[in-house]
């Protein structure tokens, strides 16, 4: 959309934050293609989910395997996000990463300063989750794992999934249905309890 101020989409009045809003925190929802990231953002957000974007510049060679492309390529990456007002002062933002995993960690400031992440897993494609869990560990971003149950997905117990995912016993693992607000909220609450336990046991 070409920018014109006359076209500016102002937030509806009921979506305005109170003037007392003074601090914001963020949580990132990650996972493979079609695993329910956008659905989860939408089910708990108090605003209609929005899309923001960033332009990534990267060396073309070795990233896009189109022969002969060696110059820098600019890619626009879009990100869904929603918002939950925690109190009159505090706001929680939820970012649902786009499908192309290789871009997530290039987006400066997406994971920096994030309280933590939710890794959404589709049991039909467990392997999609390994890479992202590894990257989160490297980046020091605490995460919980939520398993979405899709029709036709194999029926595993959480214990089986924990060992299949090679997940340490202290990392919370739960099943969820991202389409339901209560379920998505409970995943976020688990993440917060987990963060609480990490901070409480941190040697100071």
């Amino acid at each position, binding site marked *: 959309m070409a920018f014109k101020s006359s076209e500016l989409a102002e937030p509806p009045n009921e979506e305005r934050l109170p003037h007392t*809003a003074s*601090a914001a925190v963020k949580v990132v929802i990650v996972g493979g293609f079609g695993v329910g990231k956008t659905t989860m953002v939408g089910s708990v957000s108090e605003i209609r989910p929005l899309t923001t974007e960033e332009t990534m510049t990267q060396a073309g060679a070795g990233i896009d395997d189109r022969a002969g492309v060696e110059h820098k390529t600019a890619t626009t990456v879009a990100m869904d996000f929603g918002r939950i007002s925690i109190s009159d002062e505090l706001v929680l933002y939820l970012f649902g990463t786009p499908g192309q995993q290789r871009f997530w960690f290039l987006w400066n400031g997406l994971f920096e300063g994030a309280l933590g992440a939710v890794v959404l897993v589709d049991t039909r494609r467990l392997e999609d989750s390994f890479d992202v869990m590894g990257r989160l560990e490297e980046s020091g971003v605490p995460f919980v794992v939520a398993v979405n149950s899709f029709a036709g997905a194999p029926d595993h117990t959480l214990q089986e999934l924990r060992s299949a995912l090679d997940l340490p016993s202290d990392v919370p693992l739960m099943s969820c249905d991202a389409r339901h607000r209560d379920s998505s909220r409970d995943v976020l609450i688990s993440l917060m309890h987990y963060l609480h336990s990490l*901070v409480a046991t941190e040697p100071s």
Partner: protein
Amino acid sequence: MSDSPQDGTEEGPERLYVITSGRSSASNGLDLVTLIVARTVPTAGMQPEHAAILSLCQAPLSVAEISAHIGLPVSVVSVLISDLLDEQQVLTRPPVPPADLPDLSLIEKVIHGLQKL
């Protein structure tokens, strides 16, 4: 639901370059969730993008939301907000935690808020 706002003409790099007068957003300290609040109202003759940000931020709004409502990339919006900061036309409310581990009372507030959902 997640349709990109880009459905008309693409924002060419040249156009974005013009809006920001060629400046980049490197290290201006703005986070996606830094809240921005206007201290003034838009005036005639302002660059339209600056005016748009001021009118959006009459109530606090995050950098990500400003980007979404204006339909410009975060890095471009960050440069525009920096201009307004330099001219003291907006205030920022930085995100917490800045870098390190969040504190327990913050996490407890978030848990409490989520339980009310």
